[in-house]
């Protein structure tokens, strides 16, 4: 089965707003480029040839549809039916590639000759470098110097795929600053360059474009659930939320259903050391309204509107804002947002590996960690879908460091610092 995307959602409105959120808060130089991009995206998604080409690439290069499999031992332990949407089995190991192949196809359609991207942990950078390589376009990836150090493996992967990785030394030297630098590159080279944003953030039309390309996750889930359970809607859907692209991908097809049909949608934010400590990335749970990277959203900033550094054990959630569509869902009550801290995520990471034989990404582990709490709220046998957004191979070094699992296999017998 190959799913044909529908691209049919009520938001954003014509001004790029999801309720109060979204919009375009960017330098004037980019406004014409954003207009051009919005028009090109509108045109592409109305073109059956584009949808067919995208579906073909998703099947042949990404490996879609991804499986919907039951987590049988977890189900048994919790008294639920826990379904896993296996985005970890996609080429490059996460949901990120659904979006990058879509955007690179759009770039080609627009005649752009150069691809740029930002990346945090490197997953989006790898997915963008992969899509650029598939279509023969040069690619530059901006990555905070701190993340370059922490995620050396992904830096090498990107370089092997032909991308240039530019370390960013400003600000906190992480994803937020890499995004600033990618925007600066785009402002400078806007006429020939396509900026592939990796999450449902940025100025309009980016939150919409990324949502449209990730919604295949939720649309496939509906079809697969129908096959497996006879109903297209489960009792709850759970996904981790940093910027929020994997969560939007699985939520959006459910979020706009009539209230009586809509399942509980639960976005799990990274509570880091705990939301009371300030060292977290829970923008909806503990942040406030503001503007970051071109859009109105929930974010973390001080009383002067200076953006606060985020913290999470998982680099992919380590972002001080959250997409405008999630901000809207939160206000409108279409989805719930909760926090899971570093310790609970690490515990779930280990238990899930042993219980299911799947090493999940640390990001995804936040969603898995919330299942215990959710089991206390749902009737026995309730169907719960977790977006298994990525695989955990990239997190092995972090696991060695934090869990001290690798001391005896390190050169010299010492754990890396």
């Amino acid at each position, binding site marked *: 089965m190959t799913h044909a995307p529908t691209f049919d959602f009520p938001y954003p409105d014509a001004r790029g707003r999801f309720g109060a959120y979204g919009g375009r808060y960017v*330098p*004037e130089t980019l406004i014409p480029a954003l207009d051009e991009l919005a028009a090109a995206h509108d045109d592409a998604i109305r073109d059956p040839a584009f949808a067919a080409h995208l579906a073909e690439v998703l099947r042949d290069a990404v490996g879609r549809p991804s499986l919907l499999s039951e987590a049988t031992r977890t189900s048994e332990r919790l008294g639920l039916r826990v379904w896993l949407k296996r985005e970890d089995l996609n080429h490059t190991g996460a949901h990120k590639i659904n979006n990058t192949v879509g955007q690179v196809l759009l770039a080609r359609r627009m005649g752009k000759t150069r691809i740029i991207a930002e990346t945090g942990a490197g997953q989006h950078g790898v997915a963008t470098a992969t899509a650029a390589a598939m279509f023969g376009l040069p690619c530059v990836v901006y990555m905070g110097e701190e993340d370059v150090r922490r995620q050396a493996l992904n830096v090498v992967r990107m370089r092997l795929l032909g991308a240039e990785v530019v370390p960013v030394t400003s600000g906190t030297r992480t994803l937020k600053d890499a995004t600033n630098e990618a925007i600066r590159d785009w402002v400078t080279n806007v006429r020939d360059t396509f900026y592939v944003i990796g999450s449902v953030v940025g100025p309009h039309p980016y939150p919409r474009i990324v949502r449209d390309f990730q919604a295949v996750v939720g649309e496939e889930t509906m079809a697969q659930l129908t096959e497996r359970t006879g109903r297209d809607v489960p009792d709850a859907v759970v996904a981790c939320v940093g910027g929020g692209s994997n969560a939007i991908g699985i939520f959006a097809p459910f979020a706009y259903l009539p209230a009586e049909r809509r399942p509980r949608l639960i976005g799990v934010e990274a509570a880091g050391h705990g939301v009371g400590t300030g060292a977290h990335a829970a923008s909806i749970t503990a942040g406030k309204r503001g503007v970051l990277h071109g859009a109105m959203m929930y974010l973390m900033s001080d009383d002067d509107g200076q*953006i606060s550094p985020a913290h999470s054990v998982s680099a992919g959630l380590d972002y001080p804002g959250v997409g405008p569509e999630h901000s809207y869902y939160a206000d409108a009550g279409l989805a719930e947002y909760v926090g899971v801290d570093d310790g609970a995520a690490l515990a779930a990471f280990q238990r899930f590996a042993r219980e299911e034989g799947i090493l999940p990404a640390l990001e995804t582990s936040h969603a898995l960690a919330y299942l215990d709490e959710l089991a206390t709220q749902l009737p026995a046998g309730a169907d719960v879908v977790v977006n298994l957004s990525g695989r955990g191979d990239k997190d092995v070094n972090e696991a060695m460091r934090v869990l001290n699992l690798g001391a005896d296999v390190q050169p010299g017998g010492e754990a890396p610092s």
Partner: protein
Amino acid sequence: MSGRIEAAFAAAKAEDRAAFVPYLTAGYPDRAGFLEAVRTLTPYADLIEVGLPYSDPLGDGPTIQRSSEAALAGGVRTADVLDMIRDLRAETDVPLLVMTYYNPIFCYAGGGEAGFVRDVAAAGADGLILPDLPPEEAGSLIEAARAADLATTFLLAPTSTDARIAAVTDACRGFVYAVSVTGVTGAREALPADVPALVRRIQAASDLPVAVGFGVSGAATARPVAAAADGVVVGSALVRTLGEGGDLAALAAEIAGACRRTPVAG
């Protein structure tokens, strides 16, 4: 409005000069050093742009990024910037323009957008320069600024269409800011040849003075801009000179000299 902005551009025009508009980051290198630098520039300046340091200045190149980081690391808060503007207003009548990204306005602890506009005007500033706020997103800010007698300057770029030029100039009060290059702030050796054409397109749509910024680094880059535009904005070159302990007065004199369209006799 205070009328200082209009008077400053009119005075420069009467002397066949482009107005010289230096930019400095408030609180850089520190509060006293910033105020001293403004005093050094004032004899040469027609208007002065005061940058409110921000954590994520995505329209700025490395020089202004670093100065903003240093000011914030030194503990500069929005309230301190308002204090510095009050101090300067007590000393000079030169128009003071606050350049700020939108989030510090939106999140301002003293009452958000409306409170920010009120307090900036009360401190003695004459206008706001808004590098990441297109007029479409600025409805309520414009309304508050009009009520507080504060000018609003939005930016135009080489990529702006004629329709955008009409809409953006319509939302501007005081003057219009034309960005010389597709890019971020930062001193450059040369500017694109199409700067005069952009200025003419803007002047055809609006009677407001047009100041050009981004990339002007000295007399050589200032001269062609001054020939075409009503004002020349210089930021990174001055901030860099200040940071390096260089001769700020000499650079200001050089650029102010290049803003004169007819050389002074003798």
